[in-house]
């Protein structure tokens, strides 16, 4: 027979004002199995908790119901108190008679009656509670970082510097990400490559970091503490261990008219190329679509020129298995492609701006390359159509961002600062040039940010117009930018030589597929979801998977770096423990009655259910039954609901517990 204790809390006046707590305590005393029922002023206070401990010992309680506030408030508190007193914490339940009773009803009689029923439900549940023990999982103290931009580099270095091994996977042939292509950074105008490239070299030389460039995550299995990751190393056709990076191959390659990805199409590269001079690894890759040998079986000059014998036209994609305990996702962003048509929608972005039709309408990352000393023009501002120096440049904010009609309601956060920076860079290089900015609002929140924008306007003479650009037309070699200055209420037409569009930031392509492999949620725009917007900003709902940088939402370099260090910190917190524990409120399957239909296997959102052979003593397979992997199960209970033979159950919310609660209402 159960020995249940019921403790009804006054919560000062909060509960006692509308619920007759004494009456509740008395009513519950009569419930079968309840051996002690008391009311107390503040159950969560120190005296309340010691009352609990004392009664557990005195009455030899084996079940506890605290009738007070929401379990989200204090369940943990009371379970801890019980544990200290020697009672298994999972034998404690709560009845929520504050948020869901005393605070929402005024009639004392009705509220008291409801409170009694609520407590009865919890008593009915606790009768079926079983002692549970937290699940221990071992940790592989090795981390995977996906994405080698500034955020991924920071996270990898932080974890590696703490003495743990890191596997860094980057999709492109070099790490560095978007930041490697920037000219100068706001609000200090320090050269982007000067601050980033040493960090890139650190990654390459770090004894604890294994770098896989030109590689992608193919699949992820396992769980917190022990993930098995398959990485696809794409065929590079160059053995980077043998290659010395001498450059003979790419200087002699005859195929030179390929648009450079790194220069966003403004520059050209060979078919065998290093994306940029400071690339890490500083080893070339062959573009299989452009290489004459690979496309038409001609040429092969690089093979002949290579002294190191590093060229291998037979190269194939390779699969590499990596075992890690934690994963940091830092896949970053790209710019909203205003040329592309959305499938199913007739809106193709900004046809009225002529991007893709007019050579001199470019986006802000392309402008970065024009302004960069290592860019296709060597840092001279030249317009793409004819190489002339543009004397009037218009910068357009919010192209895509904050435009509900285009499906991007959010602010991309960096563009206001990027525009201010661009006007400065432009004016520093073209002294007699005019820089115009069309903006909706200037959002320059950040240390020294607004000062920076004011400097662009006051010192460098950028002309800011509050209003949107309606359309861009081409006439006599000029771009007619038609817009409005709403402060002056004047429609404006500016005859410009070049237009720079600040396109919205969107998550890097393919991140949704990656998120599905990792069981990480994402929002309607594809940004990965953090566990809690305030208190768990780098955790995700998949235990052991962390996010940082622009894959989680638009952000600038300082924020990305800060978040990357935070994610690394969280990984290190994990690695500092001996072992990991997980909540034991998970599913289990009674294999004796399991019919092997595997509906649960299909339904499980965590791939926590597997097929297990049931064998006789001789090892002969009799049948197959489902099995729950306690490391993966998150305790949602979907398998319980779909099980046809009622063999699945969920600890903490078992069939007996839930049905018991409902039956108590009869």
């Amino acid at each position, binding site marked *: 027979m159960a020995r249940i204790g019921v403790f009804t809390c006054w919560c000062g006046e909060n509960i006692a004002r509308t619920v007759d707590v004494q009456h509740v305590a008395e009513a519950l005393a009569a419930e079968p199995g309840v051996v002690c029922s008391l009311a107390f002023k503040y159950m969560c206070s120190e005296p309340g908790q010691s009352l609990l401990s004392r009664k557990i010992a005195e009455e030899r309680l084996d079940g506890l119901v605290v009738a007070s506030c929401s379990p989200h408030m204090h369940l943990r508190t009371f379970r801890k108190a019980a544990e200290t007193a020697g009672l298994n914490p999972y034998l404690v339940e709560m009845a929520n008679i504050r948020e869901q009773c005393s605070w929402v009803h005024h009639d004392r009689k009705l509220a008291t009656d409801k409170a009694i029923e609520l407590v009865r439900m919890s008593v009915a549940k606790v009768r079926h509670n079983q002692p549970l023990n937290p699940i221990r999982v071992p940790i592989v103290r090795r981390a995977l970082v996906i994405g080698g931009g500034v955020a991924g580099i920071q996270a990898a270095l932080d974890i590696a510097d703490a003495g743990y091994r890191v596997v860094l996977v980057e999709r492109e042939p070099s790490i560095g990400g978007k930041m490697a292509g920037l000219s100068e950074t706001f609000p200090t105008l320090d050269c982007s490559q000067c601050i980033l490239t040493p960090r890139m070299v650190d990654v390459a030389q770090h004894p604890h970091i294994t770098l896989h460039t030109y590689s992608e995550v193919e699949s992820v299995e396992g769980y917190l503490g022990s993930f098995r990751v398959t990485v696809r190393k794409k065929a590079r056709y160059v053995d980077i261990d043998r290659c010395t990076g001498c450059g003979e191959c790419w200087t002699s390659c005859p195929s030179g008219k390929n648009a450079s990805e790194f220069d966003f199409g403004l520059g050209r590269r060979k078919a065998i190329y290093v994306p940029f001079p400071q690339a890490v690894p500083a080893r070339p890759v062959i573009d299989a679509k452009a290489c004459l040998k690979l496309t038409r079986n001609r040429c092969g000059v690089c093979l002949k020129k290579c002294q190191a014998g590093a060229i291998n036209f037979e190269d194939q994609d390779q699969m590499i298995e990596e075992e890690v305990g934690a994963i940091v996702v830092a896949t970053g962003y790209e710019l909203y492609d205003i040329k592309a048509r959305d499938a199913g929608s*007739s*809106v*193709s972005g*900004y*046809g*009225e701006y002529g991007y893709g039709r007019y050579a001199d309408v470019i986006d802000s990352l392309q402008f970065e390359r024009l302004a960069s000393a290592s860019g296709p023009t060597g840092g001279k501002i030249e317009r793409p159509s004819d190489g002339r120096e543009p004397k009037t440049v218009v910068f357009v904010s919010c192209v895509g961002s904050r435009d509900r009609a285009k499906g991007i309601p959010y602010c991309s956060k960096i563009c206001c600062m990027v525009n201010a920076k661009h006007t400065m860079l432009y004016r520093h290089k073209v002294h007699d040039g005019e820089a115009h900015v069309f903006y909706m609002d200037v959002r320059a929140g950040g240390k020294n940010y607004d000062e920076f924008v004011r400097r662009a306007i006051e010192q460098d003479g950028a002309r800011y117009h509050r209003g949107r650009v309606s359309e861009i037309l081409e*006439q006599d070699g000029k771009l007619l930018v038609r817009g409005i200055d709403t402060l002056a209420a004047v429609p404006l037409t500016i005859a410009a030589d070049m237009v720079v569009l600040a396109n919205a930031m969107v998550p890097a392509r393919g991140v949704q597929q990656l998120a599905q492999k990792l069981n990480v949620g994402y929002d309607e725009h594809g940004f990965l979801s953090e566990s809690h917007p305030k208190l768990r900003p780098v955790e995700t709902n998949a235990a052991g998977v962390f996010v940082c940088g622009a894959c989680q939402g638009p952000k600038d370099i300082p924020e990305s770096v800060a978040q990357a260090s935070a994610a690394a910190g969280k990984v290190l917190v994990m690695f500092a423990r001996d072992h990991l524990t997980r909540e034991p409120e998970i599913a289990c399957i009674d294999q004796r009655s399991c019919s092997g239909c595997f509906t649960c296997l299909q339904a499980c959102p965590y791939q926590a259910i597997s097929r297990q052979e049931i064998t006789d003593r001789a090892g002969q397979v009799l049948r197959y039954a489902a099995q729950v992997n306690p490391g993966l199960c998150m305790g949602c209970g979907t398998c319980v609901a779909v099980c046809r033979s009622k063999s699945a159950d969920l600890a903490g919310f078992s069939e007996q517990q839930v049905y018991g609660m409902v039956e108590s209402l009869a």
Partner: protein
Amino acid sequence: MKIGYYPGCALHGSSNDYEQSVRACLQQLGIQLDELDEWICCGATAAHMLNARLATALPARNLALARQQGHEQLLAPCPMCSMQLLKANAELHDRRVRCEMSEIVELPLDASVQVLNLIEVLQQVSCEEIRHKIAVPLEGWQPACYYGCLLTRPPSIVRFDDPEHPQSMETLLRICGAEPVSWNSATRCCGAGMTVANEETVLELSHQILADAHAHGANCIVVACPMCHVNLDMKQGAIQRRDESLPAMPVYYLTDLVGRAIGLDDRQLGIDRHFVTVG
């Protein structure tokens, strides 16, 4: 192929040259037009300006007639009509509106009739078929394709092509051997229904369009709208009186040029009834 046909008032009025052109060209391409019996005016600008309910009821009556007469598809060569029909169609998805309208127009209603503009009907004929029928390739023709307002706007209603940079007429005319020019005014407004009421506006807007076409090297303008044709063709004399430097610019319906390419002559297409004639 047989298709329901809603001419609209303009095509039975002063823009009957457009109807002639559409009928001739489509017939040559093997499309039979089956005119909707007892069709009524779509209400045009007037209804949506003065009485919102009427703006739904008038096109709804036509959609109901189409349904009753068994037309799954309905061609409305006038973009004003096709937009009004599409707008009503969209509203009829709401059950409440459907019931109410059904009572007003005295016929059962659903949102099943597919309303097509002229370009969409031409697109139904495959490129191969058109290419096959070409008798006189449009060599040397450099049309400025003019879409105006309502072929592509409002995009949420008409859902046709890119509202800011439409290319469907260009694609069709390239098949016919023409070299459409790239210009700025493809989706600008010509003044539309203000022809009579506010002539000043029309003359100014249409002047800009004609001048832009010249500036970008066009030797004609192609339209798929009766109102655009009136403003650019019939009013061109008045525009030239204000700006004598403006050279004459012939304005054709899309079916005029396609029709010529597949071997029809100007009389068959009604081109001889245009105001501006060149050569």
